[in-house]
C-alpha cells in the first residue's frame, strides 16, 4: 500500500526534478535568499534551477533500500576544472553554496557539495558560513590579509570551492575560525561581524527567505534545534499561500506548533520526510502502521501527544542548559533589521520586533508555556513529564537569582 503510494503523486516532486525544483518556485515568490540573505531573489536562478541541473548534470536517479520513491539525484560534472566531481544534489545544499554565495555555476556548486561530503560537513551550514565570510569581505570586515589572498566577493566560484576545502581542513587562520560555525566565527572575527551571521541558536539558516516567509521565521526562531527546516515545517503554509506570509499574526503559533509536533512524530517513527505526503490521513495512517509494525496499540491522539511531549522534553533540555528561554528564540539581525531591497511586492519586507513578539506570545500560549517560553508545571504534568518539574524550577530560580544581582 505504502509502496504503491510512494510511486504516486505524493512524491512526484522528489522523483522527477527533485528538491532543486524549489529554486525557481522560491525565486518567483521572492523567497530565495541570495548573497547571505541580502536579496530575496537571484538573477542567475535559471542557471542553477532544477530544470537546468537535471538536463545537464544529473546522470542517474537512485533510491534507498526498499523505497519505491527514488529521490537520489546524482550529479556529475563532465567537463571543466571540476571534471569528475560527483555528488547528490538537493535544493538546500545547492542553494547554500549557490545563490546564497551569489554563485551561478553548477559545476562549482557540485564540486563544493562534493567537498562537503568528502569532509563530512553539512552542506547548508558550510554554504552559509562561506556566504557569511563573503558578506564580511564585501563590507570590509575581512580583507585579503585575513583571507590569505582569497578574493571573497559574492559570486566567486573558485573562492567558494577553495574556502570549503579550507574549512574542511581548518587551513589558515580563516579556515580555522570559520570551521567553528557562523556564531563562534562572528565572535572571533569581531568588528561587527555579528550583523552578518545568519544563525539561530548557533545553527545556520536554511534556504528560505524569512523576511518574506514570516510563519517560517517564527517557526525557526522557536525551534529547539535552531534554524532547521527538518525541525519546523512552518515554511509550508507560507509557500503554499495558505496564510499571508508577509506578516505575523495571531494563529501562527498554532500552525508552527502543529508542524513541529508532526515532524517530531515523523522523526521518532524514523519515517523519511520526503515520504510525509504518502500518509494521506497523517496521524491516522501513522498510528495504523505503528500498530502493524510493532503490535502495540496506538491511536492518532496518542501520537499527537507524543509529538507535543517530545517538543516539551527538548525545550526543558535547552532550559536546563540555560539556552531555552525567550531571549534565545531570536532571529538574526539581517532578518530583523535589513529590509528586502528587491523591487516589487516584497520590497522593504523585514520582521519587526512588534509582530515578532505577537508571534512568540501566541506560540507560547498555544504551547501552554509562560511568556518567558518556559513549560508550565500543569503542561508538564499533563504530558506525563512531572519528573522534569524540579529541573525547570531549579534552573528558573537560578536565572532569577542571576537577574536579581
Amino acid at each position, binding site marked *: 500500500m505504502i509502496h504503491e503510494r510512494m510511486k504516486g503523486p505524493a512524491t512526484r516532486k522528489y522523483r522527477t526534478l527533485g528538491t532543486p525544483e524549489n529554486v525557481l518556485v522560491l525565486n518567483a515568490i521572492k523567497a530565495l535568499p541570495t548573497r547571505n540573505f541580502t536579496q530575496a531573489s537571484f538573477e542567475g536562478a535559471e542557471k542553477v534551477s532544477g530544470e537546468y541541473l537535471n538536463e545537464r548534470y544529473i546522470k542517474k536517479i*537512485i533510491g534507498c*533500500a526498499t*523505497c519505491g520513491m527514488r529521490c*537520489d539525484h*546524482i550529479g556529475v560534472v563532465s567537463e571543466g576544472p571540476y571534471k569528475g566531481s*560527483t555528488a547528490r544534489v538537493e535544493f538546500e545544499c545547492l542553494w547554500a553554496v549557490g545563490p546564497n554565495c551569489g554563485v551561478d555555476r553548477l559545476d562549482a556548486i557540485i564540486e563544493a557539495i562534493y567537498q562537503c561530503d568528502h569532509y563530512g560537513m553539512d552542506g547548508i551550514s558550510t554554504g552559509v558560513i562561506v556566504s557569511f565570510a563573503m558578506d564580511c569581505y564585501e563590507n570590509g570586515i575581512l580583507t585579503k590579509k585575513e583571507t590569505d589572498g582569497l578574493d571573497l566577493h559574492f559570486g566567486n566560484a573558485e573562492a567558494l570551492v577553495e574556502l570549503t576545502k579550507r574549512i574542511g581542513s581548518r587551513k589558515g587562520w580563516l579556515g580555522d575560525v570559520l570551521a567553528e560555525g557562523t556564531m563562534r566565527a562572528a565572535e572571533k572575527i569581531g568588528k561587527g561581524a555579528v550583523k552578518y551571521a545568519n544563525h539561530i541558536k548557533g545553527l545556520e539558516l536554511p534556504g528560505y527567505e524569512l523576511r518574506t516567509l514570516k510563519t517560517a521565521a517564527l517557526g525557526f526562531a522557536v525551534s529547539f534545534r535552531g534554524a532547521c527546516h527538518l525541525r519546523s515545517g512552518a515554511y509550508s503554509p507560507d509557500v503554499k499561500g495558505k496564510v499571508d506570509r508577509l506578516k505575523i499574526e495571531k494563529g501562527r503559533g498554532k500552525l508552527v506548533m502543529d508542524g513541529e509536533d508532526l515532524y517530531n512524530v515523523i522523526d521518532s517513527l524514523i519515517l523519511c520526510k520526503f515520504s510525509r505526503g504518502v500518509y494521506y490521513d497523517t496521524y491516522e495512517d501513522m498510528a495504523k502502521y505503528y500498530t502493524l509494525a510493532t503490535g502495540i496499540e496506538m491511536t492518532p491522539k496518542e501520537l499527537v501527544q507524543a509529538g507535543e511531549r517530545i517538543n516539551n522534553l527538548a525545550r526543558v533540555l535547552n532550559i536546563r542548559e540555560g539556552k531555552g528561554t525567550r531571549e534565545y528564540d531570536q532571529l538574526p539581525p539581517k532578518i530583523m533589521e535589513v529590509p528586502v531591497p528587491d523591487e516589487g511586492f516584497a520590497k522593504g519586507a523585514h520582521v519587526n520586533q512588534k509582530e515578532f513578539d505577537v508571534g512568540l506570545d501566541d506560540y507560547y500560549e498555544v504551547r501552554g508555556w509562560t511568556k518567558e517560553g518556559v513549560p508550565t508545571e500543569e503542561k508538564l504534568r499533563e504530558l506525563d513529564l512531572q519528573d522534569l518539574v524540579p529541573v525547570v524550577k531549579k534552573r528558573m530560580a537560578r536565572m532569577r537569582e542571576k537577574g536579581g544581582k
Partner: protein
Amino acid sequence: MASMHERKFVSGDPAKCVGCCVCEYICSMEHEKTFNPTKSRIRAVRLNPFVNIAIACRLCEDAPCVAACPRDALEQSEESGLILIDEEKCNGCGWCIEACDYGAIQLHPETKVVFVCDLCDGEPKCVEWCPEEALDFTTKDILAQKARVAVVKKLFQEALKATV
C-alpha cells in the same frame, strides 16, 4: 523437454537498476514471510551510484552448481531448468556456491543448506514489484532481440544527428 532457448529466468538491466533492493525484500517476504535481504533468492549489488544490478539464478545449461555437488543434493529440472535442492542431502559444504559464476546460489542463514531462485511458480514477485522495471522475466533470445533493437535505435539516432 524445454530447450535452453525457451527457459525463462529473471534478468536485471543495469541501465535501469538503482540498487534499491525492493526485489530482495519482496523475495524474502514471498518465500520466508519476513523482510530480510539475507533470505532473498535475488541479490542487488551496488558498486557505486551508477553501477547497480540485481542477480538471480540464470538457469545455466549443464549447471555447474549441480556438477559440483559431491552429495548429489542438486538436480536441474529438465522441464524448466530450475535447480532443485534436496534439503536432506545438502550439508551446506558450499561447493556449488564456489562453482556458480554469479553468486546466485547461497547458503541460507538459518537452515544452513543452500537456496536458489525458484521463479515463484512462474510468476516472479521481484519482477512484479521492481519500481524501476529493471527486472525482466525473459528468455535469452528475447534479451538478444531487445539488445538488437536498442543498438539499432542508438545507431539510428546517431545517423539522424549526422545527417542534420
